[in-house]
């Protein structure tokens, strides 16, 4: 998987489809949102991908605690980093979007706050790791903390924004079952283009980082 090519090409193909169809395809006509509804393919996709990478990361952290294999730790770390990158991109793009629809870059919306807290918890994961000099301890404490950070995603992203009044669509309910905001045309592009495209691109970048890390380790052990 790490060195196969077909899924990398698939990733770019999906993204090309999302970019072209995303701008030229039809969308529901809505006041306030206007054409910004197309941000769904980009802003929302960032959060979906962040979630995917954090899930992969926590799976590898659990794996590390079970087998003590350094490879699992490297996977967990690099997927968490990519997740953080996508999360930050989601936050920044969301804030730009909010400026032109809700009126300001930051409006203390429960989802904004929840996402920001979740990201801060993940930042702390990197800080914690780097503050420990012993490699085994770094990996072990990092893995335990990563599980905690993942658990914190549930209240901050999945639960609290859904039980509070929010500017985001799907507040006070489940956005996944919401049929009012987007229609079938958008759903096809979102699920067949944007999500697999972005998810695979992030995975590609992560695998590159993992392979680079392996090379570094090899160099260290050879020297």
């Amino acid at each position: 998987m790490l060195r196969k090519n077909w899924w990398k090409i698939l990733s770019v193909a999906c993204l090309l489809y999302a970019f072209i169809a995303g701008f030229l395809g039809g969308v529901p006509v809505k006041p306030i949102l206007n054409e910004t509804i197309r941000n769904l393919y980009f802003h929302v996709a960032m959060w979906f991908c962040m979630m995917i990478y954090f899930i992969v990361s926590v799976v590898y952290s659990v794996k590390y605690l079970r087998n003590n294999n350094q490879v699992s730790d490297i996977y967990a770390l690099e997927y968490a980093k990519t997740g953080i990158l996508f999360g930050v991109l989601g936050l920044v793009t969301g804030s730009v979007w909010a400026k032109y629809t809700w009126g300001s870059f930051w409006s203390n919306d429960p989802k904004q706050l929840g996402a920001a807290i979740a990201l801060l918890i993940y930042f702390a994961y990197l800080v914690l790791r780097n503050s420990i000099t012993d490699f085994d301890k770094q990996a072990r404490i990092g893995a335990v903390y990563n599980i905690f950070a993942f658990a914190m995603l549930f209240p901050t992203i999945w639960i609290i924004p859904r039980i509070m009044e929010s500017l985001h669509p799907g507040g006070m309910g489940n956005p996944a079952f919401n049929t009012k905001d987007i229609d079938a045309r958008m759903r096809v592009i979102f699920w067949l283009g944007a999500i697999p495209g972005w998810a695979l691109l992030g995975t590609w970048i992560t695998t590159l980082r993992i392979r680079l890390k392996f090379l570094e380790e090899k160099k260290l052990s050879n020297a």
Partner: protein
Amino acid sequence: MHKKIYSISFTIICMLCSFITIAQDSTANKKVEMASAMRSNGKIYVVVTVLVIILSGLAFYVARLDRKISKMEKEMK
């Protein structure tokens, strides 16, 4: 010399500002403004082209990085 540059740039800024106000006037009508007019001008295609170029550029860059790392891996073996 400097004064000239200042005055020219000031004029340009004023002109740009006037464009902004014109743009606001034209969008002030109550109808929901979608891209249909922009598409008839063909300008949305400009945006799409720019994004496709950026995406292909990034894909090319990552692909090259991939190849470089593969080469390094071969050398290390």
